[in-house]
């Protein structure tokens, strides 16, 4: 058993007190004191796959990008085609370096042609804000603001999430399209509700004022009893997102991994025109992508975890995420492998603390929800 980490001053969300009341175990997550689990990771994971779970993700960062130049600025700052985004719609995208590697991955919400909300990873918020502000504002006619302190964020995830949300919300969000959003009253509070999530299930994310967060969370817990609602921590969030093969910044992607290597070519739209990282990505695609983020399963016992070395017939690689899949009941993971070893079915070895364990590249996602 390892020694506990040194004390640090951690940030807390408006739901901190409620987490303690609900018996959560709290951990340091990128400088935030967050619930890692309440009843247990496996049980919370199951609640989201079969029923509905609530997550406090208020630590996420929100950047407002506004002004007549907002659309052009985001076109230049992100690889996905913002011009294709309609009002009330969202897409997945990124801030990239000139090398085509990740500053962060993010969601872009289009309120109007001159008003966007960019949702970024918690621990990257200050970096992302500076990145966007300096690069966007030099273009003029656009203002970038860090609004993270104005928003709490509650994720309601699982097959029963629409039934629960529709009883507490006006208008009923169950007719929102996937990756759509609108202003919604939830439990009497003004919020923005989007049909998004990080679990591979149907679900919603509720952006509210910090002072309304606890009341909304309590109402969802109370009202969701017939659905078997469960508060869920970051532990289950990680196993859920990994089964759905959603990348985690800092594990699977960072400023050493390009968008193509991360298998996120679908957010790269070179045809739209200039954006930061475009040149490097176009060149990498022409030259051949040297390595790829793939899903794998273990043939031997044990979990291959982040940072473990991988050995393939085409050279070395590295495990970026690994866990026990509660749905499949066996160890799964993601690894960056040489492209020559990235095909489904390829066998390779992982060094699990000095022991060589067999693994195999498999199709992803590991879990896909039954279509409605």
């Amino acid at each position: 058993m390892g020694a506990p980490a040194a004390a640090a001053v951690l940030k807390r969300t408006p739901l901190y007190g409620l987490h303690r009341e609900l018996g959560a175990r709290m951990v340091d997550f990128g400088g935030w004191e967050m619930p890692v689990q309440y009843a247990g990771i496996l049980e919370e994971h199951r609640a989201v796959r079969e029923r509905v779970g609530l997550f406090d993700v208020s630590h996420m960062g929100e950047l407002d990008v506004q002004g007549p130049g907002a659309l052009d600025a985001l076109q230049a700052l992100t690889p996905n085609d913002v011009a294709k985004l309609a009002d009330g719609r969202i897409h997945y995208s990124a801030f990239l370096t000139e090398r085509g590697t990740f500053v962060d991955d993010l969601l872009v919400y289009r309120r109007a042609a001159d008003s966007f909300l960019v949702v970024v990873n918690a621990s990257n918020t200050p970096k992302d804000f500076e990145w966007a502000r300096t690069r966007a504002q030099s273009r003029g006619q656009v203002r970038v603001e860090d609004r993270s302190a104005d928003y709490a964020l509650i994720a309601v995830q699982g097959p029963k999430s629409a039934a629960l949300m529709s009883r507490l919300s006006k208008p009923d969000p169950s007719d929102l399209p996937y990756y759509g959003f609108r202003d919604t009253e939830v439990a009497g509070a003004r919020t923005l509700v989007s049909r998004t999530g990080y679990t591979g299930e149907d679900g919603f994310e509720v952006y509210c004022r910090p002072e309304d967060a606890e009341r909304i969370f309590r109402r969802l817990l109370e009202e969701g009893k017939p659905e078997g609602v469960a508060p869920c921590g970051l532990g289950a969030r990680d196993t859920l997102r990994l089964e759905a093969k959603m990348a985690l910044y800092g594990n699977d992607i960072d400023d050493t991994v390009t968008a193509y290597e991360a298998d996120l070519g679908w957010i790269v739209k070179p045809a739209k025109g200039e954006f930061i990282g475009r040149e490097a990505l176009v060149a990498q695609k022409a030259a051949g992508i040297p390595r790829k983020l793939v899903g794998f399963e273990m043939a031997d016992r044990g979990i291959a975890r982040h940072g473990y070395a991988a050995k393939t017939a085409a050279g070395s690689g590295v495990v970026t995420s690994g866990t026990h899949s509660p749905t499949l009941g066996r160890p799964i993971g993601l690894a960056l492998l040489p492209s020559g070893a990235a095909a489904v079915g390829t066998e390779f070895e992982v060094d699990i603390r000095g022991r060589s364990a067999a693994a195999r590249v498999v199709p992803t996602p590991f879990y896909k929800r039954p279509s409605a």
Partner: protein
Amino acid sequence: MNPEDLKYTASHEWVRVDGEIGTIGITEHAQKQLGEIVYLELPEVGHVYNVNEEFGTVESVKAVSELFTPVAGEVVEVNKSAVGEPGIINDDPFGDGWLIRLKLSSDAEGESLMTAEAYETYVREEEQGA
């Protein structure tokens, strides 16, 4: 909550010495810290260990932990049901969730083993130091 008849290590294992046999497991505190245990790796019968040697690993969804011998000896029994169903370590760490049994060597016991009372103080201090 830590049984009085056991001895404890700083790495959160316990040992119950009964004649020449030492039964080894992890503590209630250890299982709580790990969360739901999903894999357990234990040695084969016949393996011989010194004190404070790694004899296996225990893994939860979130973390992996090495297991260290509190005493020296030869493995005479391995808890196969715990390997097959590691959740029993969470349910009953001092009972059905035991890990291995050693036939103790003559100079079996490590000097740094703690009594239940000393272990409780140790855990409290470790938590406060966090």
